[in-house]
């Protein structure tokens, strides 16, 4: 086992690691890609049957299952590609322009 504390280095007051290694901890989550989009998906939950197609197809993997079994995108990360809306078998998702 690697002791990650041993791997950390400081050079020029900057924190780095030996050989630029990282723990595979999905730390890109720090980066909120939601700021990229110009359109966002809006779900009509009356039509949504919780089939999960949108969840399977989202390139960001940011569509989450709600407690009622239906699905909704995490807007912190949604880039507004529109795949979920285009593929939803129930046409339950509409892409809406962001105001700002």
């Amino acid at each position, binding site marked *: 086992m690697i002791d990650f504390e041993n791997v950390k280095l400081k050079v020029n007051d900057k*924190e*780095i*690691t030996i050989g*630029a290694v*990282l*723990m*595979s*901890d*999905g*730390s*890109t*989550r*720090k*980066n*909120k*890609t939601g700021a*990229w*989009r110009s359109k966002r998906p809006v779900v009509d939950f009356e039509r949504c049957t919780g*089939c*999960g*197609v949108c*969840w*399977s*197809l*989202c*390139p*960001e*993997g*940011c569509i989450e*299952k709600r407690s009622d079994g239906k699905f909704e995108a*995490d807007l912190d*990360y949604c*880039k*507004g*590609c*529109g*795949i979920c*809306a*285009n*593929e939803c078998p129930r046409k339950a998702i509409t*892409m809406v322009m962001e105001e700002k």
Partner: protein
Amino acid sequence: MAILGLPEEEYFARGHRACAGCGAAIAIRLITKAAGRNSILIESTGCIEVVSTPYPETAWRLPWIHGAFENPASIASGICAALKAMGKEDKINVVALAGDGSAYDIGFGHISGAFERGHNFTFICYDNEAYMNTGIQRSGATPYGAATTTSPAGKISIGKEIWKKNLVHILADHGSPYVATASIGYLTDAYRKIKRAIETKGPTFVNLLATCPTGWRSPTEKSIEIARLAVETGIYPLYEIIEGRHVINRPKNVSDLKPVEDYLKIQGRFRHLFRPEKNEKAINFIRERVKSNLELLIEHAQKNL
């Protein structure tokens, strides 16, 4: 937990820098679910490597190594040998991931070597049909008639004038026990194949068509639709070669095919085949070649070849 038959756990975290609508990102989410926790991933230089590891961040939740552009298969060979030496032979999934630029061109010789030696690993090519990360340049996987930045359509050119290289059959001929074509337009089919490739002992290969809206110049919301049309028009048929024998998944009949124009006209990279006027000669060439390729595949399957 499963949704649509796919494991719920995410091994490719959100916040990665892929374009909106990236087919390769969809592919990677799928591949990592098929591989699961007990895997080691080896990645080539390319779009996925670049968007997933912006040091000091990483989108990965699995053991993952990137060496160089052309050598994921060689690095995987070294990993397989090391695991064997550690008494872990065949106990961990070794999955090499590469774009078509790496797999079809610069890394081709190394895949061939690894397959010839018969290491127990799976090579998955996320095929977006060009060198996308460096700016949409032509690769061996770029289809006939597609415009790229190094094979642009112009006054005397229709884009790439060579048919797409057939890496699938080349690797099947190396004696691989399982090779398959897959598309993000048919996600559960792709999942099944990736899983089978990983679970099959020996060197296995899946070519996974992954739409690139940036490079194919297509609307981001249509990435899945286009990857489906590629199959429905017969341009990119889904098939498996299992122990050297063909199995056709779809389309099963030449008469079932949607017109190739349906696929070509939604993508900007084929725009020059329709504007300023329809290039009947080129489109006809594509149509006929698609038909004959599919007929040959179907014949192989029917004759158990």
